[in-house]
Each structure stands twice: as structure tokens, then as C-alpha cells.
């Protein structure tokens, strides 16, 4: 079995101890996903696995066998044009050093999907169905798994709001 990353197939590492993050960075030349804490506490390594946001540092690569991984390298269009969410991060100063940004963007894409299918968050008032309102508070809570040491969180929330609002108007 192989692991599909951004549409390209990669072999499953022989050593099953290799994390998905190490497989991407050290063996596949995909250094966009970042290693922060390596223990689940920062979100820098966030990727999409079959569309769901997960932490690649706590995922064994072998657990992704036969599944589809999307990393930050797979977010922009093939011709190199930025994804609108990437552009929104630039527009709103959603980063400073940029280290957390690939994780933030992958996380936000997963988060918007969760939001669309109606998943509640800790700050959602109505748990039993009924869509939460897309607000600053909701985004902050839903993005709390991605830390930014540069403190760009306000810009990050603004960028996600802009992108989501544009999407809603389509």
C-alpha cells in the first residue's frame, strides 16, 4: 500500500516508528509541514488526512497507508497561484515568522469543513443541531489547537473570517 500526498503516491516507510511528519519532511522533501513540539501541543504539524485535520507528529506514517494526505504544498493551485486563504493571511498580516502558518492554514481548511457539516464547538450555545454562527469567538475556539509564538492570532482570525465571508457570498 502507498500513501498519497497531494495526489502523488509515496511508499510507506519500512520502519513503522516513522511519524507522518518525519515521512513528509525527511523522506519526501515536503518541508512545508513544521515540527514544533513533536508531542501534540502546538499544531505546527497539522495536515489533512482524508480531509480531516490531524497532527502528523502523533500519526504513524503507516496509519496513513491507503489514505490521502493534503499538506500546505497541496493548497495552492498547481500553476502557483495562491489559495484565497493564503492570500487572506497576507492581507491581514496573519503571520510574522511564518513557522506556524502551514499548520494554521491546513487547520483552518479542516475547520471550515467541520463548520459546514454543523459540528459544534465548546463555545456553541446550541448543541443539538442548528448551525453555530461564524464569529470571532467561534474561530478562536476552533483554532485553539494552533499556537502562534509571534502572536499573530488576531490577523489569523481576521484572515479566516475574510475567506469564509467570501465563500459564503459565492
Amino acid at each position, binding site marked *: 500500500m502507498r500513501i498519497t500526498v497531494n495526489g502523488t503516491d509515496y511508499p510507506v516507510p519500512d*520502519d*513503522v*516508528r516513522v*511519524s507522518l511528519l518525519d515521512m513528509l519532511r525527511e523522506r519526501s522533501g515536503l518541508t512545508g509541514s513544521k515540527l514544533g513540539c*513533536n*508531542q*501534540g501541543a502546538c*499544531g505546527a504539524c*497539522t495536515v489533512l488526512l482524508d480531509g*480531516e*485535520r*490531524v*497532527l502528523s507528529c*502523533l*500519526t*504513524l506514517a*503507516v*496509519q496513513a497507508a491507503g489514505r490521502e494526505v493534503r499538506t500546505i504544498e497541496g493548497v495552492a493551485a498547481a500553476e502557483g497561484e495562491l489559495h484565497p486563504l493564503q492570500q487572506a493571511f497576507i492581507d491581514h498580516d496573519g503571520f510574522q515568522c511564518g513557522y506556524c502558518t502551514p499548520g494554521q492554514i491546513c*487547520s483552518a481548511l*479542516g*475547520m471550515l469543513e*467541520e463548520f459546514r457539516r*454543523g*459540528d*459544534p*464547538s*465548546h463555545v*456553541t450555545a446550541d*448543541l*443539538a*443541531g442548528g448551525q453555530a454562527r461564524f464569529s470571532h469567538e467561534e474561530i*478562536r*475556539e*476552533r483554532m*485553539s*489547537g*494552533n*499556537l502562534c509564538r509571534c502572536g499573530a492570532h488576531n490577523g489569523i482570525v481576521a484572515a479566516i473570517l475574510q475567506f469564509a465571508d467570501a465563500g459564503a457570498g459565492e
Partner: protein
Amino acid sequence: MTPFSYRVATSTTEALAAAPDSSERFLGGGTNLVDLLRQNVEQADALVDVSRLPASIDETEDGGLWVGAAVRNTALAADPRIGARYPMLSRALLSGASAQIRNMATVGGNLLQRTRCAYFYDVPGARCNKRVSGAGCDAIGGFTRYHAILGASEQCAATHPSDMCVALMALDTVVHLDDGNEKRRLPLSEFYRLPGNTPHFETELRTGELVTGIQIPSCRAAVNSTYRKVRDRSSYAFALVSVAAAMRVENGVIADIRLALGGVAPRPWRAAKAEAALAGRAPSQEAFRNAADAELADARALGGNAFKIPLARSTIAAVLGELAGDAA
């Protein structure tokens, strides 16, 4: 990390198909086990991935729900039946970890996650009775802000870190187990052990035994229930103190009360003394504070965690007040 083998199980039979003398460990989402193996807190030579077992949430005959062990924390929290019938369980799940971790974490793994005591994790630097039986405990006399005030022993004061399990404890949840020879059911209250002299034994789970799922009984009171978690930052942090509670008031008196605490004990803590103090009483702030006092009469602080006693008292009273609403 020491080398290990890996296989995927897609059915309970496959999961339990290991050779009897093998030392296979089950792997759920891996959010705890992979970390523990990497930091050499735990060792394994073989992993069986049980995260792809059937993951369904089904109605039971008594009007409760059956939840497969492989159901992800995200899916359980978002299930509209949980939100409507057991809101405290949704709220507990949603207050835990981060969305990424909840997408990975399974119900089985959440039940069996290990403590976050820093001394337990510090393999090169600290002694820990939970990690190495009889080694000693560097937490006691050390940094104890996060440690237990109830149910601890001279050997160990580490807390159970789960939010989900606090709500499940209040709901009289039953764990279904299978070791290939025998299927058993244990109420969650009998599943977790207190540390005593053997803090390295945390549950009644036998070697090689699989959690197949949990059964949540129907509970009318739980429609009016909630979970409040007090922590060092407002999201993505473990509980200092948490309270899961459900209350049904009828004819001006408390007809059913469920109360459990997190962050304060080596296991999710059912506050049975507080429940007994409230059953049949008229709801009032005074009754709530007295009930909290009854539960916390046995609380013992280690120094750094002394703040948890008044914090638990006021959080219990606040949550019960919220559930009683105009009745109090």
C-alpha cells in the same frame, strides 16, 4: 522508541487474534500512546491498530446509546443524540484537547489515556511509582499545582486527565470488554482503580483485553446537564477542576442529581456524598454549598494544589446553580 511491529485489525476477532503469549498493544488514534512510546515512558514490541474497527453509535433497548470504542471524539461530540440527551458529554468532549486531537482520538483510547503528571513523563529526571513500581514519587514535595486532592495515596497523587470520562462517570456508563475468551461488562465506577500502594495499576483491564464499546444508560436528568472546566488558559489545556452535573427538579425538590469531578483525583470522581446530600432536597445555593462541603470534607492538599479545594467548592455550587435556574 524501541522497534515494534504493526498490524491493522478491521474486526474484534482480528484485533484479538494475537498469539496468547504476545505482548501486543492496541493503538487507537495514537495521540497518547505514540507520545508515551516516543518518550520511552511506555514500551511496546507490537501494535494492533484498532482505530478502524466499526465505529457506530446505536440506540439500546433501554433508551440509551451504545458507542463503539473506535468512534472518534469529534463524532461523539457532534452526534445530535448526544447533544440533545447528554449535553454534558458533548460539552466535556468539546472542552478537551484540540480539534485535531479530537479528530484522531477514539473513545477506547480516551478511557485508557494516562496521566499528564510531569514527573510521570520525565523518564530521565524523576522518580515515579506509576512508571516504575516502588521507585518513589518526586511529585510529592515537588510541584503539585496539577495534582489530586481526593483519592490520592502516599505513593501517587497524579490526576486522571480525561474530560469525557467525567461526564461518562456521572452517567453510570458501562464499559464492554472482550479478551477473546470472555466478554465482560464493568460499570465505569468499577473500571478505574485508586492508586493505593499500586499506582501502576490504573484499571481492571486485563492484559490483551479490548474495550469494544461503552453503553450509556438513558437518563432523564441529563437533558438538563452541563460540564464546566476551569483551566490555566481558556482552551487547549487540561482541567484544574471540572464539574459534570445533571439535575432534575420535580415538585420543588431534587428528584435526580448526577455529579462528577475532573482534575481533582486519580480517576474521574463521582461525587456520591454530594449527591446524597442533595437528593430529595429543595435546590438552593445553601444546599449546593453544603453538598460541595460534604464531598470535599476528605480533600487533602499537597501544597501547590491547595487552591483546588475552594475552587472545586465554588465551581460545584456555580454549576448546580446554573442547572437549577429559577428553581433555586
